[in-house]
């Protein structure tokens, strides 16, 4: 699937650019994309190092395990393949909480830490585990309680009630999270039959 989407974006993009007679934008776009990618990765070094340090402290202090224990019922249902009280559970909860509170700077490093923990359970394979798929589905479908950026834009263009979209946003999010959890279960069954 990811191979298909990737190929379609490039092939379709180049064909359209060619048909429109501005094929030269392709080279520049490719280089711009690569440049952005490296910039993002490099800027991640700082926040990931910082949060990895803090999370290591939290782990040694037993706080990650305590957090995992607190949310055990929900997490055992969502991640049956992760042993109870595993540090992965704690970092998943930290990531989702940071997401919900809109702390983007903390959410990404927490998420990468959770992935590291899940990869330990995956025994270093290059194929995603069930728990990783579930985690990413929750991560991308769960969302901030207060979308500050879009509220700011609504205010800028003279909205009489800029926060009126908060309720609908939370409802739409709740619905898509429910869909994600159900579809995840179905896909997990289908794909486990195919083997890995």
């Amino acid at each position, binding site marked *: 699937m*990811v191979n298909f989407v990737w190929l379609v974006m*490039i092939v*379709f993009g180049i064909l*359209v*650019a060619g048909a429109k007679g501005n094929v030269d934008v*392709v080279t*520049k*776009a*490719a280089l711009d*994309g690569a440049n*952005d*990618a*490296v910039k*993002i*990765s490099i800027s*991640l*070094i*700082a926040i990931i190092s*910082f949060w*990895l*340090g803090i999370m290591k*402290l*939290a*782990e*040694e*202090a037993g*706080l990650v395990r305590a957090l995992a224990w607190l949310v055990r019922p929900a997490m055992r249902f969502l991640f049956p393949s992760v042993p109870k009280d595993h540090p992965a559970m704690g970092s998943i909860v930290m990531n989702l909480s*940071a997401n919900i*509170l809109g*702390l983007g700077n903390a959410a990404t490093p927490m998420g*990468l830490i959770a*992935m*590291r923990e899940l*990869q330990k359970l995956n025994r270093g394979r*290059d194929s*995603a585990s069930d728990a*990783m*798929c579930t985690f*990413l589905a929750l*991560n991308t479908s769960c*969302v901030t309680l*207060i*979308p500050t950026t*879009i509220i700011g834009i*609504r205010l*800028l*263009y*003279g909205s009489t009630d*800029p926060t*009126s979209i908060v309720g609908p*946003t*939370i*409802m*739409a999010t709740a619905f*898509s999270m429910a*869909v*994600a959890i159900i579809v995840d279960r179905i896909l997990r069954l*289908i*794909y486990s039959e195919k083997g*890995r």
Partner: protein
Amino acid sequence: MFEVIAELSRWAIPLVLLMVPLVAMLRGVKVYETFVDGAEAGFSTAVKTIPYLVAMLVAISIFRASGAMEVLVAVLSPVLNFIGLPAEVLPHAIMRPLSGGAALGIASDIIKTYGPDSFLGRLVSTMQGSCDTTFYVLTLYFGSIGIKKYRYSVILGLTADLSTLAASIFIVRVIFGMGG
């Protein structure tokens, strides 16, 4: 309610930074050494994402710059109009999982053109708020641990995005009325 959440967001990180080292110290952890131990993996984790992000962002960048999206919108809008998705928000729906910045640009353009309190303005605001940059997140998260086979996570992510879209349209219609 909003004030409480906003205040909670402001305090969350400072509180974590206060509590974690304090509790660690009380439990006899060598705080400075442990922090450095943990932070050591930061560089390799971040650098590991480079090839994955380069691959994905190059494809997205070509797709955006070439005008391929306009073609896709022209092809898809009759179908989507039929199922009740206004064609004006289609570029946003396509861009949202690919690029957060581009989607935000499209959203602010729609808000500017149609007004923030119009049906389209409210719809695109809800779509922007309730969706995430699925492809970017998958690439970054899997890239950091060297996962190349995404299995069903792409289909799962896109299903969630589509259901957000459907839910946004339905909810905004019900709450604010058809015309807006």
